């Protein structure tokens, strides 16, 4: 077999598949596309595209500089499009109470010690470590992130807007 070109998606160029119903309801599959969702989202709006009880996958439009976020548990992010810096701070005081779940948006950069930063591009995954505060910075064209986390106060659910409804 010959080498075939690998097809990626991007904000500017994506093709969405579909659910072809035989004997079912397409809503059961909650079918969406992260690029389409991000194309209609506000910067750093955390839109759930997957939900498995308390766990979620959020699609995030990475445009400009985000608020500072934190969580009491690990999170992970996978870059699907663009180039983004993530800056980390270890706050002097825990930014989120122990046991609270989901991403918390902080009102400002917390006082604390710089942990460092990463620059990630499409296909790169970064750890958003528990107990840290972090901020996304994107000075280029808008990008797309997926965040593996737990549903929290900043998770936006708008399934009827993002999912295939009609057979």
């Amino acid at each position, binding site marked *: 077999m010959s*080498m075939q070109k*690998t097809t990626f998606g991007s904000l500017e160029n994506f093709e969405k*598949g579909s659910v072809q119903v035989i004997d079912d309801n397409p809503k059961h*599959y909650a079918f969406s596309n992260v690029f389409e969702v991000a194309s209609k989202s506000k910067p750093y709006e955390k839109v759930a595209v997957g939900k498995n009880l308390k766990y979620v996958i959020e699609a995030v439009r990475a445009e400009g500089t985000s608020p500072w976020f934190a969580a009491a548990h690990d999170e992970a992010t996978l870059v699907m499009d663009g180039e983004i810096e993530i800056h980390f701070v270890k706050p002097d005081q825990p930014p989120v109470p122990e046991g609270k779940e989901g991403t918390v948006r902080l009102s400002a950069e917390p006082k604390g010690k710089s*942990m460092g930063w990463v620059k990630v591009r*499409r*296909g790169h995954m970064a750890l958003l*470590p528990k107990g840290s505060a972090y901020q996304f910075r994107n000075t280029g064209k808008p990008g797309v992130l997926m965040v*593996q986390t737990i549903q929290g106060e900043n998770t936006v659910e708008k399934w009827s807007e993002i999912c295939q409804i009609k057979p």
Partner: protein
Amino acid sequence: MSTAATPMTTGKTLGYKTHAIGSFQFGRDEYFAHIHYPGGRHIMQVDAFLRALMRDVAWGFFYGTVNFDTVFGTVNHYGTVEMFIGLFNEGYRANNRHFVETFEAKDLKAVFEGMLEDWTNEGFDPFAAPDETGTVYGAKKGNNSKAIKRQRLIANRMVGLPGDLTFRTEPLNRQFQDVPTDKPEVHAEKGFENEVHAFNFFDYVCRSDVTWNPSVVSCVKDSQFCATTEEHVLPITHGNDRVEWFIQATDEIIWDVDDRATGRPRAKVTMKAGDVAAMPADIRHRGYSPKRSLLIVWENNDASLPQQYASGKLTPYPVAF
């Protein structure tokens, strides 16, 4: 009439052993695997059987049901395993022709591993895409122990962190030669090297030398990102005992989705790069990947879920809207 009472001789002159556990007996000849059980016999092409057997062994019987085909398979009860004929086949069930026997998982795994070792010939890799492996047909010729002893890779927190799963050193797969291998920039301050962490996820996954074998790459408590490269057809039909999700990272996979209990078709789901879809807890699914593609299988590893779905406490659909 029970044919299983008669000792199997299938394949003995070809150099293959027969294998047995409980009331089941397994034999192979040049082309086929033969399964004898009280009340009847079943037959599968041996390459399809070994590809399915490989996944069942490597995954530790996986989440829920591993259907080798529309008749034979296993159901994982996490400690014990049901091996069945026709349990999820409407015709077998309607006519009471199904057969089920329960085994300790370790005992069944041992028999499956022995069968896999015995029946896999030199040059045949049941984990590989058809274009990447030799044939399994014919009389016994050598073995391929190295290929069949690969284990499912499981990161505790994230691949590449100190003390966790290490990066792959295999070359990029032949179908992923155009996937960027650049590394992220990581600037960790002293003392935070174990927390400020990033890696090239696509590069890591595209070095996998197996197909249809999800490995855990990142975890948020029981939330597991299981990444895998897919090519040709999923060798089993997976029956869910919980909701799982697919995130298509590159290329395209077409899924046949059938009712878990009866096998009646319910949907076809075509997923392209960036698509996200749930697989409900009451279905079975089989994927077709025309080109090697990168798929993220997102699992909830909470051990209480099978019982909660089976009892009806949880709806099989993840989102109501």
